[in-house]
């Protein structure tokens, strides 16, 4: 019995140490990426190519998800508000829920799943087939050439995707609430405009998406770089990317929300 408890505590301590180590290595990767970032801007083509792969190719999943999320918000929100006779506030509900929370958070989760795993798998595979080593031996820094452009691409893509998500989600909510259920068109928009503040709600949501973009991209890059150079190692690394990104996003969301909206 004692043994089991001791084992458990040991594992807990080890995983805590592991988390700290991960944070430290991640921070070091971040600083290295910044130092080696000049190429990402001088040869902007590298970054543009990565923006295409992380951002443009994520548009489909983001837009479709946003539309459905918006519709669900409209549906659920309407039936709840109707009980209190406030069904005209459906616009406010949909807009605030999306702009403040769902836009940044759901986009980050989808981004981690789609673009994050792609980045981790790609870099992990390059490590396994010694492409990173080959680049190093050719006196080209893999951080400058491979890591940094993907980092900046993620930082640029995420806020754009989150904003698009919010917009499409609101349109989805509009579609359900006004066009299908029959809430008043004017009330939908006017209540929304009266209660959604640009500085407090929209800008804060944008700040969240920047923070999430930074987090998800860095985690994806880090996991790819430290993946063991085997097929199993790479596949485990992509799983870790999704899990760690998702937990970090949700945790950071709580922290940021308590700063911004309280």
């Amino acid at each position: 019995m004692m043994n089991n408890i001791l084992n458990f505590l040991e594992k807990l301590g080890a995983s805590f140490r592991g988390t700290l180590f991960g944070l430290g290595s991640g921070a070091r990767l971040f600083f290295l990426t910044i130092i080696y970032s000049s190429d990402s801007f001088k040869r902007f083509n590298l970054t543009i190519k990565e923006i295409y792969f992380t951002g443009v190719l994520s548009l489909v999943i983001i837009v479709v998800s946003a539309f459905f999320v918006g519709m669900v918000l409209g549906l659920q929100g309407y039936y709840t508000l109707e009980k209190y006779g406030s069904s005209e506030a459906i616009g406010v509900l949909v807009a605030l829920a999306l702009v403040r929370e769902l836009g940044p958070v759901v986009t980050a989760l989808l981004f981690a799943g789609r673009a994050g795993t792609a980045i981790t798998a790609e870099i992990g595979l390059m490590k396994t087939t010694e492409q990173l080593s080959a680049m190093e031996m050719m006196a080209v820094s893999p951080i400058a050439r491979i890591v940094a452009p993907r980092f900046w691409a993620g930082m640029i893509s995420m806020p754009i995707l989150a904003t698009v998500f919010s917009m499409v989600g609101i349109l989805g909510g509009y579609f359900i609430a006004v066009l299908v259920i029959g809430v008043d068109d004017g009330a939908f928009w006017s209540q929304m405009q009266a209660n959604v503040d640009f500085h407090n709600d929209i800008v804060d949501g944008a700040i969240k998406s920047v923070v999430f973009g930074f987090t998800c991209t860095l985690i994806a890059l880090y996991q790819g770089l430290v993946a063991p150079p085997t097929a199993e190692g790479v596949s485990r690394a992509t799983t870790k990317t999704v899990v760690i990104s998702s937990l970090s996003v949700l945790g950071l969301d709580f922290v940021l929300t308590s700063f911004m909206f309280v």
Partner: protein
Amino acid sequence: MERVKLDIWVGIFVALGIIAMFYLATRVGNLTSNDVNETYEVKAYFENIGGLKPRAAVKASGVVVGRIGSIKFDSEAFHAVVKINIDDRYSFPKDTFANIYTAGLLGEQYLALEAGGDDVNLKAGDLIQHTQDAVVLEKLISQFLYNSAGDDKGKD
């Protein structure tokens, strides 16, 4: 992937982001022309500002004409000093009333300006003399109780 095609797609992507931001700012939020216009600042003193916050709306006849700037406590005169930014396009007479009202039953509090009849208008840095504090629920209840107690006494 050809470079030209790549650039076009990324350009569309970034443009989409900007459009979405614009859309949110104007159609969804309340970034109206008010926020980008020039404003002038006046002051008002209140005994109790209730739930009034900086950036709350300043309305006249229900139309937003400005925003609350800053709210501070004057520890020598023991009242609240509220700085108000009024849009340059609107002028108010010197004897304007500044009242704190609530939007809706449980809504946010805002400042309502009711114009007086003075010939001279407010300039930047002026003080609004006539103010009405926010309604505080506890005071209202205690007033009600006091009144009804008084009624009872009167009946005896």
